[in-house]
């Protein structure tokens, strides 16, 4: 059946001259649009099955019975179990032809978080680290790069330095780790006074060398963070019940809600991890359970940001280290599959409601419009107004681009 798209329609209607005009108008709108300010990464640790999430193939062999549902974006389906995200699909685009060479969890995580393959000569900074580095923020007393519920490999600062590592925190139902003194206030104060005596003795004869350690400065900033009002952003208990319910009564849901609150106080990048997608056996049971956590949290976050008018300022990226094999294995599981998987991306002025690239319905062939993972990084950086081609310097003076990818044209 011939497909009828916008271009075809306009041509048929004899108004194809409108297309260049439309392009010019779109360009002008793009130029005037302020870049996004922050990034939320919903990290699906373990490698989610694309077939049971963002790229269902209903009725094919490889679907293995997984059903698809319609969404708010015309012609774009999601796997059953993501009904609430489906309602938000006008904000979300799917990159269904994502492609990487790394089929190991650690290496795949590195590739997806940095946009580079692991390289023994240099540790590349993660996307969040680059953004925090390039977009400094004044008046933020808490870490601007945060990883909530991290697994073994949270986002790192790499060559930018450990100060750009994501600050790790766990279920927001609990207190932020290590921010409460173990002793009463006056005793804590007196300990700090005493510290000056010991540090003073060490500085004698060492002068600038001790200042260069950054120790005292890091102590002071850590203390400022402990007493900062902004720290309350981690505490989701003060949110209205309805909001908490919308995000879901799970650690991941609370993490997403905390992420939104953190952005409000000036945090640049938050990574929230939902781990456990490594479904080598019982794939369908595992993904069904995880989707019940992902669906409300992801949808509520998009809705919340949209209603507050800040979705245009925030890129929300949902992805894991790789996808899973189209063919089921004898244990009813799917194995690692970096050759073709899907990322969902929303907000930050990027276009929503699109499905980019197309995976093979048999699962064997390369996807159409193949997108190397680095393109995702280039796209996000551009949305934040960062020149992705600008270089960073590695430890041996070797330079490398912030991202070696190309922004995905259809998204901007």
């Amino acid at each position, binding site marked *: 059946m011939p497909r009828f798209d916008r271009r075809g329609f306009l041509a048929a209607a004899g108004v194809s001259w409108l297309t260049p005009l439309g392009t010019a108008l779109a360009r002008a709108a793009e130029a005037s649009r302020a870049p996004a300010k922050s990034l939320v990464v919903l990290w699906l640790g373990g490698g989610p099955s694309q077939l049971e999430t963002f790229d269902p193939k209903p009725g094919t062999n490889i679907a293995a019975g997984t059903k698809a549902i319609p969404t708010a974006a015309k012609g774009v389906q999601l796997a059953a179990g993501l009904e609430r995200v489906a309602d938000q699909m006008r904000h979300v685009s799917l990159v269904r032809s994502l492609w990487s060479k790394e089929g190991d969890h650690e290496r795949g995580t590195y590739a997806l978080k940095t946009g580079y393959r692991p390289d023994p000569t240099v540790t590349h900074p993660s996307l969040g680290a680059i953004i925090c580095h390039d977009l400094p923020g004044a008046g933020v007393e808490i870490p601007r790069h945060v990883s909530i519920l991290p697994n073994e490999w949270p986002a790192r600062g790499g060559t930018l330095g450990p100060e750009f590592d994501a*600050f790790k925190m766990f279920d927001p139902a609990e207190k932020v780790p290590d921010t409460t003194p173990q002793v009463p206030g006056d005793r804590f104060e007196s*300990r700090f006074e005493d*510290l000056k005596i*010991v540090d003073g003795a060490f500085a004698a004869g*060492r002068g600038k*060398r001790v200042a260069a350690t950054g120790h005292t400065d*890091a102590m002071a900033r850590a203390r400022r963070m402990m007493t900062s009002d902004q720290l309350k952003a981690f505490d989701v208990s003060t949110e209205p019940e309805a909001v908490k319910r919308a995000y879901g009564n799970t650690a991941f849901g609370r993490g997403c809600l905390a992420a939104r609150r953190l952005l409000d106080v000036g945090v640049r990048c938050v990574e929230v991890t939902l781990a456990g997608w490594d479904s080598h056996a019982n794939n369908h049971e595992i993904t069904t359970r995880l989707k019940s956590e992902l669906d409300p949290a992801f949808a509520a976050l998009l809705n919340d940001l949209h209603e507050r008018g800040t979705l245009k300022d925030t890129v929300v990226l949902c992805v894991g280290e790789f996808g899973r094999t189209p063919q089921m294995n004898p244990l009813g599981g799917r194995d690692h599959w970096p050759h073709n998987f899907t990322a969902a991306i929303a907000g930050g002025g990027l276009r929503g409601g699109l499905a980019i690239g197309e995976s093979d319905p048999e699962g064997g062939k390369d996807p159409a419009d193949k997108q190397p993972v680095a393109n995702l990084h280039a796209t996000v950086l551009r949305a934040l107004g960062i020149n992705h081609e600008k270089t960073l310097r590695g*430890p*041996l003076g070797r330079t490398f681009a912030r991202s070696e990818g190309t922004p995905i044209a259809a998204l901007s």
Partner: protein
Amino acid sequence: MWVRNAVFIGALIGAGLAIRASLFPLSTESRRVKFDPTPVQADEFQAVVRQVNAAFQADWGARGIEPAPKATDLAIARRLSLALAGTVPSLEEIRQFEAQPPESRLDGWANHLLHDRRHADYFAERLARAYVGTEDGPLIAYRKRRYLAWLAEEFRKNTSYAEIVRQMIATQGLNTDRPAVNFIAATYDDDRKAPDPEKLAIRVSRAFLGLRIDCAQCHDHFLEPAWKQTHFQSLAAFFGQTKHTITNIADGDGEYRFEDRVAGGTHEIAPAVPFLPNLLPAEGTRRERLAAWVTDPRNVHFNRATVNRVWAMMFGRPLLKQIEAQTLDETIPPALDILAADFAKNGHDLRRLMLLIASTDVFRLDSAAPFEITDAHEDSLAVFPLTRLRPEQVIGNVIQAASVTTIDQQSHVFTRLRRYFNERDFVKRYGDADDDSFAKSTSTIPQRLLVMNGDLVDGKAREELLNASSQIAMFAANDAAAVETAYLAALTRRPTPVERDHFAARLAGAGGDARKRHLADLYWVLFNSTEISWNH
């Protein structure tokens, strides 16, 4: 009933005596540190030390630089302990150290540490980062724990370093039976179902030769015209016949083909070494030939790379600009050549090398100076470098400082296990430095929060019976002695008069729980000081 009471009281008295014995010079023979300075006293050994000293003196003289004075013996003892065993001296060890004759106690202490099991374990763990990386690697195909245990055992036996490296490069066999093969197995590539020759070429050239020729992996090197892609790939070809079946590493036949990442396609290439081709033997498997070439005493790059790496582990920075150089034409400091030649001449004896470095004047300089310290001082090692301790050293320091006795192989298994888990948790939170890049780094906020408020560190400072702070509060003779003991345990030094008076005043008149609380506060302060998390 009275029997039970008597037993209970007896147990309490026994425990009290045990703690007291630990705090002050002890009597058990088995816990006595063996200070044996004899290897250092040999004339030929001293001659090499003098050569290194003269080389540094000449350099400072030529630059018109005055070096810092010699550090205190305790500062050097701490340095040695951190460098060689990854922890600080215990109070028990400090007491014994101070009872030794001053002229030879540092030599004896260094020699003792090199024979300590903690040294072998620590060095194996550190060096393995360069050999096999920090990844856990492929399951079943690769046995990291077995590999580490093997490496530690070789260091404990002081096996020739050349022999250790030969085994890693050339051994065939099962990864459980011949743990050295895990060097190869760690690079197992699931796609090709074999070890990765390119990764192995990178590891061999970096870890053993101190060279980064891997920039020539895909194209001829931009910075170093001498490195061609063929150099790199023909080095990789030595691993082109290596097969990996489940857990077994063996050599077969066939030619190595590499992928042309620029033009596409693959090319066949024969094994060849990038320099000193006359050292490559004609006989043996490809890997055996490569191993013989790498470890040949005449291969200066192997000798220098080893000395440079060991130097970096002891000073916190390498003697050359980097651990791994990109070019062959870097100026070699005379001291490096002296030590490298001695290393080759003495059968690649790592223990002797470390003892030599520990005996030099430059290792014993202060990190403070009565004059302004300039970049020129830093560059020429005219002052001892200040470098951040690694996470496991920081927590090792905290755990050791919280105990008055040495935590080592002789400690109760419970104590060692607790140390293991404490350390693992802490390192995970504090942030593990990926490799031994010796890059300059500064303190971070999460680290400071963890040490300031974390349960682990606070638990070690807290006024609990098993902690040194409580024991010192109970048993120290007076306030000044209590302060001094805490300083020795945590910072391996005595307090300055200002510090002593300040903290003694805090303790003055306080008894019982209040006294323990003040000691716990002092411990917290010492644990959070700049000094404790830096090597100096």
